[in-house]
């Protein structure tokens, strides 16, 4: 049997809203993943170096305060440089300020390198079952 995939969680940049990332981490653990929970206010550089050192399979970022685009400036270039093009990237939460149309925001974050982008109030258990496991299997990581 293959070992459980390693998933990194945390809120990115200056955001300190801890509940989202705690819920995500808990759900991942319950689903049997190896979780590296970095907590709040994780810099893009920290996500990258931790992913290198732990040989992570995916990163699940959360952000609630609406400024994540600013926090993620240059993240995609840096992770490519660090040899992490194979790591699956998800982000979810209140990604921009105010009410917004997720359809409109999604392509902006896909351009930042994210494979999947989720609006507020997403069901994390459903995401793990339907998306994450599928993506991990597709990349031969599970």
């Amino acid at each position, binding site marked *: 049997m293959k070992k459980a995939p*390693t998933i990194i969680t945390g809120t990115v940049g*200056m955001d300190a809203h801890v509940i989202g990332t705690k819920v995500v981490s808990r759900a991942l653990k319950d689903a049997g993943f190896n979780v590296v929970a970095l907590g709040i206010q994780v810099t893009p550089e920290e996500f990258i170096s931790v992913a290198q*050192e*732990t*040989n992570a399979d995916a990163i699940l970022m959360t952000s609630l305060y609406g400024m994540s685009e*600013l926090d993620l400036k240059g993240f995609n270039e840096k992770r490519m440089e660090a040899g992490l093009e194979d790591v699956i990237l998800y982000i979810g939460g209140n990604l921009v300020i105010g009410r917004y149309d997720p359809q409109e925001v999604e392509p902006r974050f896909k351009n930042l390198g994210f494979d999947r982008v989720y609006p507020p109030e997403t069901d994390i258990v459903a995401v793990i079952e339907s998306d994450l496991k599928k993506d991990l299997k597709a990349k031969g990581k599970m």
Partner: protein
Amino acid sequence: MDDIRLLIDFGSTFTKVVAVDLGKEEIVATARVPSTVESDITVGLGEALRKIEENTGIGDLEEREALACSSAAGGLRMVCAGFVPELTSKAANLAALGAGAKVVGYYSYKLTRQEVQEIEATSPDIVLLSGGTDGGDEKVIIHNAEMLSHTGKGITNIIIAGNKTTYDEIRAIFRENSKNVIYTNNVMPEIGTLDVAPCNHEIRELFMKNIIEAKGIARAKSIIKDVIMPTPSAVLEAAKLLADGCDGERGFGALIVIDVGGATTDVHSIADGKPARPDTIVAGLPEPYEKRTVEGDLGLKYNLDRLLELCKDRETPPGFDDIVRGFHDGKLPETEEELACHRLLSCLTVEAAVSRHAGRIEVVYGPTGERLVQYGKDLTNVKTIIGTGGPIIFSSGCREILNHALYREENPFILRPKDPEFYIDEKYILYAVGLLSQIEPKKAFNLARKYLKRI
């Protein structure tokens, strides 16, 4: 019959001996003679012991029980190689320094052929290989083990302290290899956790078993009991004992030991280093409770160029440049002017070494306002600073020198102590306290408390 214990330090320049009366908990004699490690270590040792014998009347019996530490023959020279610079490479570096080593090479990511040649040419006593959290990255450490397995005599001892899931494969790489390879716990088993104690233990074992033999230091064992650790490690043991106390004796609490030498300056801090302000966020790799740093570019005999650079923007005493040139040529400070210059250099050394050792605060401005991020240890609440090493002990201005370890209003981002008490290791016994702490911690503690001088 008095219970006398001899404690010895084989330094690169001097062999020092302290004779301690364990019953009375006092020093009965000290001796200092030039080291003879290059030819035969027992010659200098014999001479030092004769001096002690003349003064105390002790003999073979006590000598057979003597314990020693050593920084002779280059000290314990180590190369560290990890994966990500700020993670496993840094963890390996902290482990090596904590074991009293001198880190003579520091590498990250996959080693290249040229880097491996460099390491071979450096010919370190030990190569410490880390990389990957447990269950994490395997590629880098396996690659590096493979590279090291093809090297010659320049590399003999290798300690593996990385991702444990790679160990079977690494064992296979070193099968039928003549190198001495030792496997121990990962220095960074998971993100945010540092586990250097098992690695420290292996380094010390290796030092006692193989390295002192290779350097000719083990010959001393024909006269004394054993050489049990590198000297910086003995000083760190003393610092630990003084901070924590033992067996009903209350320690000094969090403290810093500053050891200024001719070639390097060591700073040891025994403190948890947690933020003094609750609104501060700690970032980066957690640093150990017992932390040692070595400033290889700060010494008062061999590294004057670097110190002169630090002096550039400062006011200097008259004739400064000429006098410092004199120190370069081996002159010792004697006149008033020379002493003033030497004192200034010592002050700068202490300031730079403590600033690099202490943690720092960065203020980050973001959409939610400003936020304080701490890297390293907050030492602002440390209440004890102990100075040792020739330039501090023998200076009339030792207090002035140690004052340069303090927090400065004009640079509030470096977390140096704000309001400590100062002591000096007047009798030069911290190494002896560290050695003695291994067998008689309580007596070692009392001895230190008796002979450290408050200034």
